[in-house]
């Protein structure tokens, strides 16, 4: 039966090539535009660590003085050195990490090639195990290395290739400005999207090329990068007194494996704030937050408004395409009233005519889906050539590819239901009489 409908559909589509092409084009445009935007949105709202994100938490505390205090206002997004170190050394989670972004001057070992800047991350030792960072060679440093300010460095595969060749990078010395470090690990390709662990650098920033122990980097005065919020009257610190400044410039993450631990950590944050207030470091009443990874991304609005607006636009466009398809299908089916009337008179049931028309519609849907896929590839190619941080991540994966085709077919079949229902209500006697 299906083969017969398929044959009928092909014949009917061939008979009116212009109208068929119009419908395929309309669906293709709608699907192409919306899939481009949905893919971009899908990439931008992805979970960067799907296996672990529910167990990773970002706390917030409120260390500012009373100037500009409004009860209930969200506390600052970052930590001062003192607070980050206090939370780190309290060891209340199974892992915790304090870190900041930085920028280092890499001086290539050959000597003759020019020095260049590289993005860096100064972090405590748990970073690599906590975020499941894949190592190509070597490993990260230990908490002990951190404490005794070891001159160790972990670098990205790309930087290792550039400087020494990734195979023999471990053990080499790395000159950063006036300081020399020893490479102890090379990270394989790792680029979590969004750049969740430090959103102040831009939500879709690329992974850094150089990782240094936090204590070492700060003690040596390697330049930090990112946002810094200061309060009180100290002003901005010089690289030498970053540790004492009343400024928030560090990120802190904690891994909490059970709901009970999460609850305990919430209480700990309040307790810590109270304790610091008694010590005179804090002035405001305890004002703490604890977000899990996805909650933190949501709180920080990582998806730019312009991308949401474009997705909305694409959906509106899709809607117009669908209405257009419904109208064109209706016209197409009603045009064939006489043919359908003859089939009805010869004994075909309403259901079989309905099925026949839906087969025809899904054929159009499939063709429209293929056209839409081509358009989406083209659209994403354009997105990748835009100078925006998320550009390089705009790829259509297998899941989205399948979704596109299924969406196109479903949309068309849905759009065909009403026209098909109208068309199969045709009264054979009336149509035959006019003939």
């Amino acid at each position: 039966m299906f083969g017969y409908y398929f044959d009928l559909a092909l014949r009917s589509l061939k008979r009116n090539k212009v109208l068929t092409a119009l419908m395929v084009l309309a669906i293709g445009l709608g699907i192409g535009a919306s899939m481009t935007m949905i893919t971009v949105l899908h990439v931008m709202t992805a979970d960067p660590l799907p296996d672990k994100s529910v167990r990773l938490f970002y706390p917030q505390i409120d260390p500012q003085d009373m100037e500009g205090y409004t009860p209930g206002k969200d506390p600052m997004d970052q930590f001062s050195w003192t607070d980050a170190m206090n939370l780190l050394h309290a060891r209340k989670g199974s892992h915790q990490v304090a870190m900041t972004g930085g920028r280092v001057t890499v001086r290539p070992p050959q000597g003759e090639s020019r020095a260049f800047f590289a993005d860096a991350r100064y972090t405590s030792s748990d970073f690599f195990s906590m975020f499941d960072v894949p190592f190509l060679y070597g490993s990260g440093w230990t908490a002990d290395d951190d404490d005794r300010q070891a001159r160790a460095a972990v670098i990205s595969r790309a930087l290792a290739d550039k400087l020494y060749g990734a195979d023999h990078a471990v053990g080499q010395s790395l000159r950063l400005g006036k300081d020399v470090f020893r490479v102890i690990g090379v990270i394989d390709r790792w680029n979590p999207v969004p750049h969740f662990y430090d959103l102040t650098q831009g939500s879709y920033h690329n992974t850094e090329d150089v990782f240094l122990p936090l204590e070492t980097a700060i003690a040596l005065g390697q330049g930090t990068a990112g946002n810094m919020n200061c309060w009180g009257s100290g002003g901005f610190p010089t690289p030498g007194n970053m540790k004492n400044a009343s400024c928030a410039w560090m990120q802190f993450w904690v891994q909490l494996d059970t709901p009970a631990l999460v609850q305990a950590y919430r209480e700990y944050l309040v307790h810590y704030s109270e304790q610091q207030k008694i010590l005179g470091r804090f002035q405001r009443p305890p004002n703490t937050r604890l977000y899990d990874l996805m909650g933190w991304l949501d709180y920080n609005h990582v998806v730019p408004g312009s991308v949401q607006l474009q997705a909305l636009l694409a959906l509106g466009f899709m809607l117009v395409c669908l209405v257009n398809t419904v109208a064109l299908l209706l016209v197409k089916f009603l045009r064939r009233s006489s043919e359908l009337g003859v089939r009805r008179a010869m004994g075909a049931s309403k259901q079989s005519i309905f099925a026949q028309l839906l087969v025809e519609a899904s054929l159009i849907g499939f063709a429209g889906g293929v056209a839409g896929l081509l358009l989406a590839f083209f659209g994403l190619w354009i997105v990748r050539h835009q100078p925006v941080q998320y550009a390089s991540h705009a790829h259509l994966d297998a899941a989205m590819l399948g979704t596109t085709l299924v969406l196109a077919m479903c949309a068309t079949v849905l759009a065909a239901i009403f026209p098909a229902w109208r068309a199969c209500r045709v009264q054979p006697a009336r149509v035959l009489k006019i003939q």
Partner: protein
Amino acid sequence: MHPILSALKHHKTVVILVVLEIALTCAIVSNALFIIGSHLADMRVHTGVADNELVWATSSGIGDTTTPGRQASRAAADLAALRSMPGVRSAVITNSLPLGITGSWGTCLARKAGGEKPDSVCTVVMYAGTSGVVNTLGIKLSQGRDFLPQEYQDYDPFHGDQPPPPSVIVTRSLAEKMWPGENPLGKAIFLGDKGSDVTHVAGVTDHLLNPSINKYNGADLNLLLPVTSVAGGKYVLRTEPGARDVTLRDLPKVLDGVDDQRIITGSHSYADTVSEYFHDDRALIWLLLVVIGCLLALTALGVVGLSSFWVQQRTHQIGIRRAIGATRGDILRYFQVENFLIVSGGVALGLLLAVALNLLLMKHYELPQLPLYYLPIAALVLWLLGQLAVLGPALRAAAVPPVVATRSV
């Protein structure tokens, strides 16, 4: 008109679908046109400096240049070398440039010593430039004077406790905000944590944009400080009109000639910097234009498909009308009026949808309110489009010969 309406009543569903499509198109197109218009308005700004004659670069040392003294002496050597380049009129160091995004400093200014909050204007951007900054950038003063040579002083608002330079140049907007309706020349401004450091207004400029335009800092709320050096600043060169590209090419070599132990992060033409600043706006405008184009094309195709169907369906009736005396013009006009009625229905519904969509966008994306004059523009576009789309099928209808009436199908 009456027979057209009663004919349309026979095709309610199809008519409703087309009206709906036109309404959606109308709503999206009018909002898209409005967004394009507001972005175009944003892009038509005047930076307040000599856009086409400026070249800038940043450089940082990798040797031991951490002490302020060594930094200052190297900056002086760099500037001397840059000034001696052929085609370069002058060179200075500044912290930032209008629409240059990076290096922006913000502060609060107080009208009285002590700096009580109600007496302050906050989120003011500070520019700092070395000797000759006003002429190098091409800032036009509308009142007052340029800085005197002795007014350039060693000052860093973030470190150290030197007093600020004795004079500053402010923008007209800042002057109006600080002292509404008064003559700003010679007025005192208090800087610093406690509003303890005083400086005075020496000049006023009508145009000088901020390093970036946003809703916190506004477009041009800023002041310019005369300083002797800027840590981590930009070298800005004013070139002869034709010499810009040569200067761009040679600049890294000249800086290397002074000291090759350094990193030069590019040399940029300032015109490109301004153009890059608006890249996102341009991308959005193109995207919206493509979407508008596709939508209009789609709607036109829908109208063509529908009209062709009706013409085909009514061939017999058209023949009869022709046979009893209707001219070709009558038939043509029939289809045109019919199309006009359908599009008008769509436009009427579409205008309501447009306002609703705008309210939604205002709520979620901080867009301003849709000015009403965009609505007739969108309506006119759709009417024209409808008439163009129906013309082909209508001409085919007009060409139906009266003899068709005598044939049974």
